[in-house]
């Protein structure tokens, strides 16, 4: 059991370190967590609010929530790509539990994500749309976290096999960004809706917006699909990680 305590300790220290290092490189530090999404938000709002955004109720909130939630997935996964691969010296010298490196990276991004959620809450309160349904936010947050973690484990491990994964993933996320209704809304009953059923991020956004902006209790079907996707992804991600794990130190 000393091992579990040890792991928690290591997790705490590496997450803290990851957080501090992220802030250490820039002058504004933590401010970028908020500034980044807000700047993207302002640009997209200016471009789309009169066209695509005209039909969407509370478009600014809709847009910002999309950006912020997508940001967690995007940053969490892209930082995980190099979190083990980039620590070649460490994994070749210490038998540290490598899953903890990935977990601490995603946790670190989660912490900054919570800041952004707080800002979303504040804006929603300002617009007067907050209702009791926000109690569902932690659930959808958790599911997003699990999904992101699963993808992160897979990416961190596959980086050792496909050196180009960084480039590939960057393109994949760009396309995925457009395919997800972040700055637009899907036509009811259109083709887009059917395809989006298979996009876990669509479900995360859909449910998050329902509970935060529109005061609707999340649909059971939606929650079920998202949960299934998230846990399956985590399971597969960990499987891939464990399979490639023993040989990390030899491939780098």
């Amino acid at each position, binding site marked *: 059991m000393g091992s579990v*305590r*040890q792991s928690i*300790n*290591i997790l*705490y*220290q*590496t997450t*803290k*370190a990851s957080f*501090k*290092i992220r802030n*250490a*490189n820039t002058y504004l530090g933590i401010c970028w967590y908020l500034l980044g999404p807000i700047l993207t938000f302002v640009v997209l709002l200016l471009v789309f609010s009169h066209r695509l955004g005209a039909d969407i109720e509370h478009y600014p909130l809709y847009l910002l929530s999309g950006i912020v939630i997508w940001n967690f997935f995007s940053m969490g996964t892209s930082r995980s790509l190099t979190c083990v691969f980039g620590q070649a*010296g*460490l*994994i*070749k*010298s*210490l*038998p*540290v539990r490598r899953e903890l490196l990935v977990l601490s990276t995603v946790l670190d991004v989660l912490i900054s994500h919570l800041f952004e959620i707080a800002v979303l809450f504040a804006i929603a309160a300002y617009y007067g749309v907050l209702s009791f349904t926000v109690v569902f936010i932690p659930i959808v947050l958790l599911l997003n976290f699990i999904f992101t973690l699963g993808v992160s484990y897979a990416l961190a491990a596959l980086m050792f096999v496909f*050196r180009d994964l960084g480039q590939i993933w960057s393109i994949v996320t760009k396309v995925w960004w457009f395919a997800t209704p972040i700055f637009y809304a899907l036509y009811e009953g259109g083709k887009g809706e059917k395809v989006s059923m298979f996009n876990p991020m669509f479900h995360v956004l859909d449910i998050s917006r329902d509970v935060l902006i529109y005061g609707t209790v999340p649909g059971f079907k939606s929650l079920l699909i998202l949960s299934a996707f998230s846990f399956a992804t985590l399971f597969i991600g960990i499987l891939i990680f464990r399979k490639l794990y*023993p*040989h990390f*130190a*030899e491939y780098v």
Partner: protein
Amino acid sequence: MSDSNVITVGNVSKIFTLRGEETALTRLIKWREHLKLPRKFTALRNISFEVGDGEVFGIVGRNGSGKSTLLRILAGIYPPTSGEIEVRGRVIPLINLQVGLQPKLTMKDNIFLVSSLFGISRKKIISNFDSIVDFAELKDFVNVQVYQFSSGMLSRLAFSIAIHLEPEVMLLDEVFYAGDAGFREKSKKKMMELVKGDCTVVMVSHQDDMLKRLCNRVMWLDEGQVRSIGDTRQVLREYGETMST
């Protein structure tokens, strides 16, 4: 027989696959070289030995004989290709002393980070903190980001953290002593204290005097195979003879 053995190594072999250029284009251009590349390299061949509780076990051999590979396998960094290994107790591998030090973090943060990576509890780190700082002679730099440290300071810090870990099993890979003569003397003394204590030690070294003073037994590895295991002086003499020919 194996009850008191802390480390048991049974018939271990390690084969590495050698890789050439990684990118598609260079592989295309340099395809001829790829044909010539020896695909597999056997670093260790059927190694077996045991180390008892509290014993200090030395490993000598020429560069490339497999010593570091063996140590890494013992540390659990990668698995053997075949054979069995059993190591009981908390393993502290000191293969690369400056591992884990993050340039952008302060010395204080680094002490906590690195010590945790080695498995030390937060309480223990707090109680050892002052001692670590004192031994490294870096009292004025606790809140300074370590990218500003000189290489000597980094080595002293790394070494100081290392000797405050509480190993049950210690794996030393040619741990060099950095700093000026005074610090080096201090380091050697502290290292000897640690080694002579309760922990089981496997040390790879080229320094005959340290081996003679500390090791109960020594193993001579040559090109991945065990040439000789036994009494320190005897094995060192056998090894030394091949060096002078």
